[in-house]
């Protein structure tokens, strides 16, 4: 994952829910020196909370990406809406795509 253009990262989750999986795995994907260049804020909800997990990324050009994961309420609703949940790879792809675009822009201007 290209993290050179990421400036801030905001994560909030309840680790006792399955929704916390992607934000937590995203934290482990960052390089070991990431906290020196990226402003990382982590918040944990208490165990009983049912708030949706949150992952917010800020880039150098001001773009922000925000993802939330809500708890699955029932199977009937899923059938009607049928939205695919955002996975870790989707986020990584999106970050990389934006980073490549920024790199290209930098190359052309400077």
């Amino acid at each position, binding site marked *: 994952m290209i993290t050179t253009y990421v400036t801030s990262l905001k994560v909030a989750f309840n*680790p*006792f829910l399955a929704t916390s999986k992607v934000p937590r*795995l995203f934290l*482990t994907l960052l390089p070991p020196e990431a906290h020196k260049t990226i402003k990382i804020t982590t918040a944990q909800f208490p165990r009983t909370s049912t708030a949706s997990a949150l992952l917010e990324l800020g880039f150098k050009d001001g773009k922000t990406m925000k993802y939330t994961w809500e708890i699955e309420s029932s199977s009937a609703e899923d059938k009607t809406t049928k939205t695919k949940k955002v996975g870790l790879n989707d986020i990584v792809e999106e970050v990389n795509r934006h980073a490549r675009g920024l790199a290209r822009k930098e190359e052309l201007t400077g």
Partner: protein
Amino acid sequence: MPPRLRLRSLAQLADLQLQRPAYTCGRCQYATAVATTPASSDTQFQSSIPPVSRYPAVQPPSHRSPLQRKSQLLRSYVSLLQTTPLIVLFQHSNLKAAEWVGIRRELRSALRKIDEQLAKQGTPPEDLIADYIKFEVIKTNIFEPALRVAEYFNPGELAPQSIDGSDPALTHALSEAAYRVASEHKGEHPLTPVLAGAVAILTFPAVSPVHLKTAFSVLSPKAPTFPAPTRRAAPSYYDPPVQDGLKKLLILGARIDGQIFDSEGTRWVGSIEGGIGGLRAQLVALLQGFGVGLTSTLESASRSLWFTMESRRNMLEEEEKPKDENKQ
């Protein structure tokens, strides 16, 4: 040249053994012929045979191959979970080796300092557990089934039909019975979502809030209750590798005496002053306060009754007095 062995099928061999007459020597032939004892029936014969174990005692057959590394890891995790009352779970994101070394060193030195203090106060040596507190990275995909085996598999409670197929004597962590019980409870344990990604555990051989507090003040300092060690007391704590590593550690929760706590709950356990004794003192104070309140509440009814009666008596006395005066 083929081996000169007469190959017989198992059935043939069994027939041969049945047909072979019992050996009797020539001299006692007569005696045996006279003293004929009634032959014991087949069922009697079989019931008297003690069950023969078909494996060496130290190598019981197991569901997972004992030669695999992960089977042994599972065994070690199960025994860890069964023997360790206090486990704190941390998330670690890409810590470097130097950072791990630094953090473990600081943790060990801080805990040893606490042990020295406790020893001076006259704590018995079995409560000095600093050297047995370990901070290690786990394999979550093995730890999770190990947790299920430790939590749900109780060899004493097995129903007789559930151990039908396998030997009832086999109740170790790798046995088929353990596997079956654990797989019945797949995904049920509340710690299952926590055990995803990179997780490290801090294990305490005894529930000791003092040691937990020290560990927290090193690993995730928070000003009022868990102050970080001062620069003068522990200068190496402020080395860049240690500080960088601490930023990447995150408390997720804890398993204390089989109960699950979130990060705040774990901090609360760490903040109990004076361990079990402190908790008892708190309880006593609470109960005493409660007792005082209760007695005053119970007293108030009788006291008010007494006041009413007393005032009534006064009234009556006052009424009687003027009558007496009139008579005179």
